[in-house]
């Protein structure tokens, strides 16, 4: 059976990608999850894995081509393999009609096709349209993020909750643990916080999964998206895959690995498309709290603020203590304030009993 391999969406804000390099050729036998190409988005170079196994019949796309999400890039002959359903992030639905010559010139000049009015049949952009002087923003990450987030806010009825959690016992526990580890084995504070969220997600499946076609599909696997600010500008949200199966030690290693690969542009497409819930840690940037926008088709996002000292009231005594503000942005079509509060309370309970995190 013939199967058209589409250009995958590597994030809600991606509507096209540039094929940098093919890693397969016609005649090759491709296994499921095998890396078949490298694609450059506005933010990063990503390795594309095949979701099917089969024989490569033809490569449609050429290295250097800019290709719209969903457009076939190769043809496989797939026999008897199982299709892995992949979540489809919300992507801009408008497809721009443009002639190849016009597209080539627009790319060469760094022009954004969305800003060019087509004069051809059905509004197709022709070469002469690109040759006209136009005001263009070119490829703009801010514009792409804005488009995706606008759509998320329009389609997802967000609700927001916040909890302030005392961290004194957690900090004391972490200091004691790290003091007795080799420097290179040190546990990172962000990882400890993620572990508390992962354990809470196990108890609250309504926060973990995809809302698609009017139906919520909870996910048994927890692929935890973690927002990473790129040194080159912009933000990527790769997922720590199967995070529920990892203990603190492996999570600590995987977290470092994924930040490293994000900055180097060595992510797998699964890591960018299959996140089931997202955490954004603005605390590292200095802010005390964040109310984030859900990354569709996910249904929840947890925001971690900056760990700081504040006055703690204990009976009639006031003392200094560490706290963190943890927020939840969640989809009202799937959960409500009560279940959201219980989820935040579960995170808090884990942080107040850090020994739980080691299990």
């Amino acid at each position: 059976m013939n199967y058209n391999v589409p250009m995958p969406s590597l994030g809600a804000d991606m509507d096209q990608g540039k094929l940098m390099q093919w890693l397969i050729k016609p005649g090759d036998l491709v296994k499921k999850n095998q890396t078949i190409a490298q694609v450059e988005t506005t933010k990063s170079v990503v390795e594309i894995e095949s979701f099917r196994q089969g024989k490569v019949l033809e490569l449609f796309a050429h290295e250097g081509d800019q290709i719209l999400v969903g457009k076939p890039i190769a043809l496989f002959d797939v026999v008897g393999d199982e299709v892995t359903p992949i979540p489809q992030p919300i992507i801009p639905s408008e497809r721009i009609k443009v002639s190849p010559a016009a597209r080539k010139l627009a790319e060469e000049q760094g022009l954004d096709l969305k800003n060019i009015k087509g004069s051809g049949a059905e509004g197709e952009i022709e070469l002469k349209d690109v040759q006209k002087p136009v005001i263009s923003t070119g490829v703009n990450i801010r514009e792409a993020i804005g488009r995706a987030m606008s759509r998320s806010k329009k389609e997802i009825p967000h609700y927001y909750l916040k909890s302030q959690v005392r961290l004194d016992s957690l900090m004391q526990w972490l200091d004691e643990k790290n003091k007795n580890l080799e420097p290179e084995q040190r546990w990172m504070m962000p990882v400890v916080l993620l572990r508390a969220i992962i354990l809470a997600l196990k108890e609250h499946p309504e926060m973990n999964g995809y809302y698609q076609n009017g139906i919520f599909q909870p996910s048994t696997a927890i692929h935890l998206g973690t927002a990473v600010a790129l040194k080159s500008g912009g933000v990527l949200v790769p997922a720590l895959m199967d995070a529920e199966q990892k203990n603190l030690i492996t999570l600590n290693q995987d977290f470092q690995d994924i930040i490293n690969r994000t900055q180097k542009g060595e992510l797998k497409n699964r890591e960018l498309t299959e996140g089931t819930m997202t955490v954004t840690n603005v605390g590292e940037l200095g802010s005390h709290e964040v109310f984030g926008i859900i990354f569709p088709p996910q249904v929840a996002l947890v925001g971690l603020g900056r760990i700081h000292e504040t006055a703690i009231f204990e009976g009639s005594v006031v003392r200094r203590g560490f706290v963190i503000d943890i927020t939840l942005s969640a989809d009202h079509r799937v959960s409500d304030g009560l279940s959201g509060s219980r989820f935040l309370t579960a995170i808090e309970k884990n942080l107040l009993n850090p020994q739980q995190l080691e299990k």
Partner: protein
Amino acid sequence: MNSIEVKMGLAKIFHRIAPEIDFNALDLTRPLRDQIEMDSLDFYRVLVQVDRQLGVFVPDSKLAQFQNLDELIKFISEQPIRHQPQSPDL
């Protein structure tokens, strides 16, 4: 270690981990995050190397209190060295 030795050690560590940063151009009295872009992994690596090369463990509870690099340098210089430091040039 006195604070000058700590500062020199930190400059070498920063150079090794984030060579794009000119450590000597940093204002040590201002928050680091307001001056440069370092992700949590970069800073983690700095702490690992402070432990490895300068022989001082910096706990997270202290880090959360520091407002700038000056406070970090002061803390390190006041701590006993807990193990034999390795050469910064490794």
